[in-house]
């Protein structure tokens, strides 16, 4: 196959797959997986809210991943190659946009609010929070010892930290429905899932950028590869961790 044909294939397949994913319904198995992970009972009161959340996040994350594949292919030209950093960055950009697009369930005529501050510690597991902090702190010393030519990596990592903090605040401030306990439990579960994904994905992306910077500074390729794999596993573990939100009475 010629390069232009390969290129068209490499660019069109991810976009076609993203379009397919975004148009397909949310399957019961996906709702069940969410329910199991968040220890949430799906009921008539919260089912639609959970499905709408899953549809929105899946659509934007898939689109982000597809754009990441496209970016990866385009940056690797003239060879057809896939680089993991644009893939992760694309997926994460999609995850961030998804959080801005998630809508709260329609509120009724009642205007009620809990007199409890929503904190990150309520929704994200302690390891998830700690790893994100460690990753954010790592940027500074590595940036300081690095030459100017690797400055974009440091700036990129700091930008990820800032974006995660801003979107986390947005997720915490998202209106909470005043409805049945099932709906409130689903809202807590959704908030927790969103914040864990932001923590896990953000940690992974920051560490990918740090490793990329170290690689540019002469880090052994095998060590760098092992690092990338470990970081990907770590990010995945945080993003998909089971975390039960305990609500104070």
């Amino acid at each position, binding site marked *: 196959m010629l390069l232009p044909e390969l290129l068209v294939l490499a660019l069109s397949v991810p976009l076609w797959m993203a379009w397919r994913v975004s148009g397909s319904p949310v399957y019961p198995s996906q709702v069940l997986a969410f329910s199991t992970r968040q220890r949430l009972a799906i009921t008539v009161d919260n089912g639609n809210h959970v499905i709408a959340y899953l549809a929105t996040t899946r659509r934007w994350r898939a689109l982000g991943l597809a754009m990441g594949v496209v970016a990866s292919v385009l940056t690797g030209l003239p060879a057809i190659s896939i680089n993991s950093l644009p893939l992760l960055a694309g997926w994460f950009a999609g995850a961030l946009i998804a959080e801005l697009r998630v809508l709260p369930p329609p*509120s009724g005529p*009642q*205007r*009620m*609010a*809990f*007199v*409890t*501050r*929503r904190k990150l510690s309520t929704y994200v597991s302690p390891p998830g929070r700690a790893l994100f902090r460690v990753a954010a702190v790592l940027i500074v010393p590595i940036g300081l010892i690095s030459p100017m030519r690797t400055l974009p990596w440091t700036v990129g990592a700091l930008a990820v930290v800032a974006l995660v903090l801003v979107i986390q605040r947005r997720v*915490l*401030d*998202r*209106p*909470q429905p*005043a409805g049945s306990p099932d709906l409130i439990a689903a809202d807590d579960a959704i908030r927790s899932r969103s914040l864990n994904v932001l923590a896990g994905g953000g940690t992974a992306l920051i560490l990918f950028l740090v490793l990329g910077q170290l690689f540019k500074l002469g880090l052994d390729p095998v060590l760098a590869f092992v690092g990338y794999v470990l970081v990907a596993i770590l990010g995945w573990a945080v993003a998909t961790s089971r975390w039960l939100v305990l609500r104070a009475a």
Partner: protein
Amino acid sequence: MLLEVDPASPVPPYEQIRAQLATMIITGALAEDAQLPTIRQLAADLGLAANTVARAYRELESAGLVRSRVRHGTTVAAVKPLAPKEIRQRLADAAQAYVATTRRLGVSAAEARAAITSALGE
């Protein structure tokens, strides 16, 4: 603990928030140092403008019921126990308000006393 705002009430929303939070603090339902929701969070949950909630918080702060600190947000301040004289005064005010309500409703004194006894669980 829930806070409720009635948009149809003639009482402005900021006053509804202030009054409910003040009651929670004075009665001890909200303990000292308890963190209140951020202005943005409460405004979003209640579907109000942030300025409305900010005004309620400002009034609570000037009444000495809450304090705002950088990095801590708004927390419940230590509420001084009322002096016996002040307790008597507040009780008398509350009784006057109750009597005014019963007169407006056209309720007899006996019925009003019975309602109080029932509310006290006696």
